[in-house]
């Protein structure tokens, strides 16, 4: 059983951040009902598609972010849509949405509607800039939201423009942060009978996140020191990514102990001058030439896996830069049973990255693959207490599908 079995989540989110938040809840046992518009979550139209042919049930993005959920197609623009929403709200313990601010109200099913029907449950609204902001109606994407709220300014090299993370990494971060707001809302409902309209802003969760953003701003506030991008050829010791015989390895100086480092290199006489033990020696650009003169030849003599094995033995901080295909095959994650097998009625069978974390008393599992568009409309209407003849009328009127 999951740790939050029995929790009922009414999920009106689309895209990445919202669906990731609700997927985390679904993963651990919540019954998440995904309400889709007739054309479905727009991520059904984004790739990567199995076989590279666009198909709403074969989107890798949709399949990943919506595993373990059920789907109902409901047209909120239809007048009768509000009646179905009222029944679903009766069913739900919490509602999550990611429309642009004000859209849910325009459909007539906003916070007042929800609160009027079930005062003890919360609505968690996930949006770019929040429900109240001078930018509340502004558009955003992974790139623009991260560029604004996250510490992108100092990513990359000084000769070039700032550069983002891969894919939708920042939206995934924010989704996980939003999931905490949903759980906290459930505690509030369960323990105190309080419902509220939670305003979760993606950019705020980047300003306040654990990456280097808060460090860059406090460095300015404390000491007037700004954080920019270093020049491409900037010298320094253990400054990040290094080439090796078959790829790249990461060695970042912070936290590195030189005694262990010498042990890893197998040459205790290297870097043995006492000045290497002086505080801050590792940050001195002057020291880089001597350091690199020892380090680079050694790097080129070894593969990334060899280097990492030596680093692990010597307890040195290091990471090889694995490619996606290397990771999927990697024996560590295979041995740990990380990959989850999924059987999907249209997309077929495939593996996907598995559990976010392992709860010993309440294991993670794929209960069901991502839903087909409207796959559970009838059973969800029944769960919400809508009689069969009324369901027939809703189908006939095109309110549900």
């Amino acid at each position, binding site marked *: 059983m999951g740790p939050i079995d029995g929790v009922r989540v009414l999920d009106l989110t689309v895209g990445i951040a919202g669906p990731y938040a609700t997927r985390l809840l679904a993963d651990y046992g919540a019954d998440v009902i995904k309400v889709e518009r007739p054309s479905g979550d727009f991520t059904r139209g984004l790739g990567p598609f199995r076989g590279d042919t666009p198909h709403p049930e074969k989107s890798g993005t949709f399949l990943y972010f919506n595993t373990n959920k059920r789907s109902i197609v409901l047209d909120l623009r239809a007048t009768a849509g509000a009646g179905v929403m009222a029944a679903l709200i009766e069913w739900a313990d919490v509602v999550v949405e990611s429309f642009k601010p004000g859209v849910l109200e325009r459909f007539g099913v906003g916070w007042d509607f929800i609160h009027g029907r079930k005062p003890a449950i919360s609505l968690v609204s996930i949006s770019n800039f929040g429900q109240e902001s001078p930018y509340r109606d502004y558009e955003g994407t992974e790139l623009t939201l991260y560029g604004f709220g996250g510490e992108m300014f100092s990513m990359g090299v000084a000769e070039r423009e700032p550069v983002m993370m*891969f894919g939708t990494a920042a939206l995934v971060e924010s989704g996980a942060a939003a999931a905490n707001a949903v759980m906290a809302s459930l505690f509030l409902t369960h323990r105190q009978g309080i419902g509220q309209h939670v305003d979760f802003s993606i950019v705020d969760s980047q300003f306040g996140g654990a990456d280097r953003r808060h460090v860059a701003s406090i460095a300015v506030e404390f*000491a007037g020191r700004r954080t920019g991008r270093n020049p491409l050829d900037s010298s320094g010791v253990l400054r990040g990514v290094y080439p090796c015989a078959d790829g790249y390895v990461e060695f970042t100086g912070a936290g590195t102990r030189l005694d262990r480092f010498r042990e890893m290199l197998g040459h205790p006489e290297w870097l043995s001058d006492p000045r290497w033990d002086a505080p801050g020696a590792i940050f001195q650009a002057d020291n880089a030439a001597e350091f690199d003169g020892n380090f680079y030849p050694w790097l080129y003599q070894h593969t990334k896996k060899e280097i990492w094995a030596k680093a692990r033995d010597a307890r040195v901080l290091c990471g090889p830069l694995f490619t996606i295909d290397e990771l999927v095959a990697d024996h560590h994650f295979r041995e740990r049973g990380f990959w989850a097998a999924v059987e999907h009625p249209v997309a077929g069978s495939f593996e996907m990255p598995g559990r976010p974390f392992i709860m010993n008393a309440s294991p993670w599992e794929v209960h069901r693959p991502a839903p087909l568009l409207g796959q559970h409309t009838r059973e969800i209407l029944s769960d919400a207490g809508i009689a069969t003849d009324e369901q027939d009328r809703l189908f006939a009127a095109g309110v549900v599908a």
Partner: protein
Amino acid sequence: MTQHLPLEGIRVVDLCVVWAGTFATLLLGDLGAEVIKVENPFVLPPMTRGNRARPTKELLAATPASAGAYPGGEPGPRAWNYNPTFVSLYRNKKSFTVDWRTDEGRDIVGRLVAKSDAVVENNATETLEKLGITYDWLRSYRDNIIMVRMAAYGASGPYAQARALGVHLESVMGHTLLRGYRDLDPTSSTPIFSGDYLAGAQAALAVQMAVWHRDRTGQGQLVELSQAENASAMLSQAFMDYTLNGRSAGRLGNRSYYGFAPQGVFPCRGGDPAECEDRWISISVISDEQWRNLCELMARPDLAADAELATNAGRASRQDEIEAAIASWTRVQDDYSVFHRLQAAGIPSAPVLEGSRVFDDPHTQARGLYQPQTLYDDIGTFRYVQPFYQMPETPITTRQAPVAMGEHNDYVYRDVIGVSEAEYDDLKSRGHVSMDFDPSIP
């Protein structure tokens, strides 16, 4: 009825170091949990309270801003209490000290566990085992205790013993290779600690779920979060493309994973890049209508009339040319000016904000994201980032400014653990109770 914060009444013992665990307990503290940091006056955790307990002014000046920018460039009275790398992650936490290397110190930790709901830790594998602090040991003090462990690669498997910070995990998990410029090799990559964000947020979620589960079943549990496995979610599209199609992804720079074009970061009017005064605007065009609006804004009817560029596929095939046109348009404008013009035309965009500018943006001002605060030590008043959860009925605020080591010694020993006066005096005399690192620590 008096309203309580969502997680009020949940007590969390924080055995965390550096980023991920510290972020997890930050979110729990923000949401109302009582988080108690367990610190040791005889052990300076690497980086967490600073690289040195007593750095010199010269050393700070020679250290990158992230770790060297102490208030006014001075180490001040107790440098560890405002280490710039982590000070913002210490709000809404309490701190007490105990030398857990000793038997009586470990017993104090155990007695705290007996009064707590959950323990969170993200130390290197076996750090706690060597001290005898295992899940079974915690259970000997409280049977239904929850423990969340965040080993880098997990508690089992060939990499279980590997040391790692976020940057290494990101490398191992493919992130470092895949982010960055399309035309430069990965040595140009910059550490970012996105894995710490994600793992921290998920560990906080795991605590909440485990408490929910315990409230229903009476059962506590051990949660194991492998930060490496956890980080996979950020590359989910790349993993899915591989498992669905056998394709191994490459770097995209600032271009859209989904092929929306144009998308990029473009220069604006700015000052000296060496002073971080270069200015940039990020722009994403995700519809044909947005493209037409962009052409109109740029006064480029020629581009608007180009039939090939009317479709995303056509634009995707000519991105270099389009990006050059956008850059020549943005280069002479202020970033905020072009931001508002683009947004008025419905085009996703935003300035790429340099860290000194976050305080004065109309959005952060309107939402009160940065507020002046004073800390326990008198280092002056500075603006610190505030909790980002906005909950009107249960306002999420900074109830406790970034905490000083040992600031809550009296409260934790007397009121939480309930030691006698005699015992407290004895523990003090043995050095457990302190607001300073031992003088032997440089």
